[in-house]
């Protein structure tokens, strides 16, 4: 394995800055809750289904509690359930049918409540633990392929068509299948329900769709003897709820960035910071690898100039993630091969950055995005850009290699686009398998020049962000050349200040499970 011999003290300084930066937003996270966190809580309790108008019951219940959301939905649900003896789904249906006024029940005695929550949370924890155990057993029996894991997306809009499009590549070597969501979903303030066949540019993330795809991939796993990981997207207005669904349906990875929704979906920053934190605690408990979206920065900024923002954001995502209880092996931090292909020595700069990230994040399953922005209708050129990308992937031991599609500039992948992508990666990975053992980096060469530039720029940038605070940095447009203010963006009305009566019973059990009571106290 190649070593750059990076300055460990500088790395420590970078990490320290990132930690300070994220702690800067801890108070605002702790002070507030969101409708999506509250909906996630009732989902964790087992609430599912829709009302007669198709509104998901978690939305129905949380809407009903809305006037007193600051208390937390848990408090009112517990009171109602203890009073009526209903289970959570009965309660949800009753609320939907306006048979009960959820805010009308008396506060139950403290000890009864204590027992109630112990029972509820242990039911949830067991449900998740079962999935984790299942995954571990499967992985033992059907060991997944080696890294870089070959990751392909399916995006037909129709879950049944997606199954075909997912099974074929899984049979032909894909390690990970990601089901892309319909364009609009991340801005919906509810999670659609049931099996769906009508998405645009992707398929709705629903619990039933998760189940259908999980089942299909488990079948392939049994046919091929290889565990196939399933990914979906949590980012958006329902981030924590989708992670709950993923935890219940044994998804293995979730797109779960601390800032993507803010920058690329114009979701309110406060809303996002709260949502990402709670959802990542669930990921941690469910042993789900998160993927972050730094690659997106390079679609709006120049990849050469903005390289340091990627590293900076990776460090911030790491700091948030560690705070929420994730381990390095859960942190699929993002970066990308997005330089203009006409740049002299562009390949060397890409390689430099990939090697640098590998050394800064040694235990993290780094998520590496292929060329997208500079792909064109010249599918032949695109195919060799993907080959060089794959070479960097195997050379720098990336964890998660999102395979580049030769038709990236044209359409969501056709079946054979994915096949060709697998063939490309398969060829390059195998044919250059031990390339990192074959070479040492020239300490005076262009690789180290690039690494030093990016690291120094990152340190300066993080200092600046730390000085201004993360919210201000975002509103100054320092990330991805996009500016978002803490008072703007979608979903702000779903943020409520917690009342002194607020409870979220899962925090305690998650914290206990993760052994992080003290740290989490600062955050939630």
């Amino acid at each position, binding site marked *: 394995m190649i070593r750059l011999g990076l300055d460990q003290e500088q790395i420590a300084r970078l990490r320290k800055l990132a930690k300070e930066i994220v702690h800067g937003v801890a108070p605002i996270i702790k002070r507030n809750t969101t409708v999506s966190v509250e909906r996630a809580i009732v989902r964790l309790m087992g609430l599912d289904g829709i009302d007669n108008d198709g509104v998901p019951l978690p939305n129905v219940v949380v809407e009903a509690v809305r006037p007193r959301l600051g208390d937390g939905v848990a408090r009112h649900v517990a009171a109602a359930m203890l009073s009526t003896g209903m289970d959570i789904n009965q309660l949800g249906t009753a609320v939907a049918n306006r048979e009960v006024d959820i805010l009308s029940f008396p506060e139950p005695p403290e000890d009864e409540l204590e027992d109630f929550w112990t029972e509820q949370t242990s039911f949830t924890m067991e449900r998740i633990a079962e999935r984790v155990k299942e995954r571990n057993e499967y992985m033992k029996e059907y060991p997944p392929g080696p890294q870089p894991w070959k990751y392909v997306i399916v995006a037909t*809009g129709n879950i049944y068509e997606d199954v075909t499009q997912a099974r*074929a590549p*899984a049979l032909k070597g894909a390690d990970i299948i990601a089901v892309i969501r319909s*364009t*609009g979903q991340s801005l919906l303030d509810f999670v659609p329900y049931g099996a769906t066949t009508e998405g645009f*540019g992707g398929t709705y993330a629903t619990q039933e769709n998760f189940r259908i795809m999980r089942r299909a991939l488990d079948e392939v796993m049994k046919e091929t003897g290889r565990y196939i990981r399933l990914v979906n997207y949590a980012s958006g207005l329902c981030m924590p709820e989708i992670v709950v669904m993923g935890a219940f349906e044994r998804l293995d990875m979730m797109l779960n960035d601390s800032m993507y929704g803010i920058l690329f979906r114009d979701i309110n920053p406060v809303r996002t910071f709260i949502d990402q934190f709670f959802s990542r605690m669930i990921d941690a408990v469910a042993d789900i690898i998160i993927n972050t979206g730094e690659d997106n920065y390079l679609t709006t900024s120049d990849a050469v100039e903005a390289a340091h923002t990627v590293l900076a954001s990776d460090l911030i995502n790491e700091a948030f993630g560690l705070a929420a209880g994730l381990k390095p092996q859960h942190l699929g931090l993002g970066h990308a091969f997005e330089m203009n292909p006409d740049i002299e020595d562009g390949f060397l700069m890409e390689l430099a950055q990939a090697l640098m990230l590998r050394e800064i994040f040694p235990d993290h399953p780094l998520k590496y995005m292929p060329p997208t922005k500079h792909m064109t*209708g010249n599918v032949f050129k695109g195919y060799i850009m993907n080959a060089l990308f794959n070479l960097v992937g195997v050379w720098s031991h990336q964890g998660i290699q999102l395979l580049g599609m030769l038709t990236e500039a044209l359409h969501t992948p056709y*079946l*054979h686009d994915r*096949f060709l992508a697998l063939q490309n990666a398969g060829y390059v990975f195998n044919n250059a398998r031990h390339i990192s053992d074959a070479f040492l980096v020239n300490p005076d060469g262009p690789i180290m020049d690039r690494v030093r530039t990016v690291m120094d720029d990152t340190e300066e940038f993080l200092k600046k962000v730390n000085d201004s605070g993360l919210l201000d940095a975002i509103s100054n447009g320092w990330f991805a050349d996009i500016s978002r203010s803490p008072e703007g963006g979608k979903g702000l009305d779903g943020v409520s200040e917690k009342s002194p009566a607020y409870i979220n019973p899962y925090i305690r059990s998650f914290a206990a499970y993760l052994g992080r009571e003290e740290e989490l106290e600062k955050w939630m």
Partner: protein
Amino acid sequence: MDVDLRNVRPYGDTMGDGAVQMSFTLPIPQGSVAREAARQLVLSMGFTDAQVVHDEDIGEGFTFFVVYGKTAASVDSTKIIPTEPEFEVWEREECNRRIQEYFGRPLVVVGACIGEDAHTVGIDAIMNMKGYHGHYGLERYSMIEAHNLGAQIPPEELLERARELGADAILVSQVVTQRDSHVLNLTRMIELVEAAGIRDRVVMVAGGPRIDNALAQELGYDVGFGKESYAEHVASFIIQELHRRMDDGRWTP
């Protein structure tokens, strides 16, 4: 090189040989039936020769093919009328000068990427100060008042803002085309503009990597711009279109 322009055919290594490369997938398992099916399929498209040079099982009973063929088809290139818009392209300063000269006031241009489409880079390339590939955007034109609303803007909102701002031109970007979502959105937009009775007052411009002028015009837009279009194209077109309308008495500044 001796080209028969009335009879243009693909060229491999001999003029008129009709050489074409193709690739596609058939939903039948790899084997001799699939190979013959692929060959017949290509022949049925008017090829005189179809060599199935590669076939590969890509899983789930699908077979991927590479075929080289010689087509008998040809086009008369002297009869081709390009569907791309015809207008003169002026530099930024020239645009500013013409606006002053023709209209005597700045033009108001309002743009957005509509519907659920969140791709801002295209509309930004046309509108924002910094532009794209070294071509400054409309915001830098002293005689253009440019308002870029960004992405994921409902058509209703774009219309409302355009009316508020007194837009002379509305720029609509669409990047996502899956299941014809761009067609749906573009149609919705033009219908709203027409229903509002302001169609004559505004130049309607559509753009995006999979948009072309033919499609845009079919949908009722004045023009459509695809990949590699820049602010100067858009500005020049708008000026010339409004000038035409002024001449016809259909529009006054």
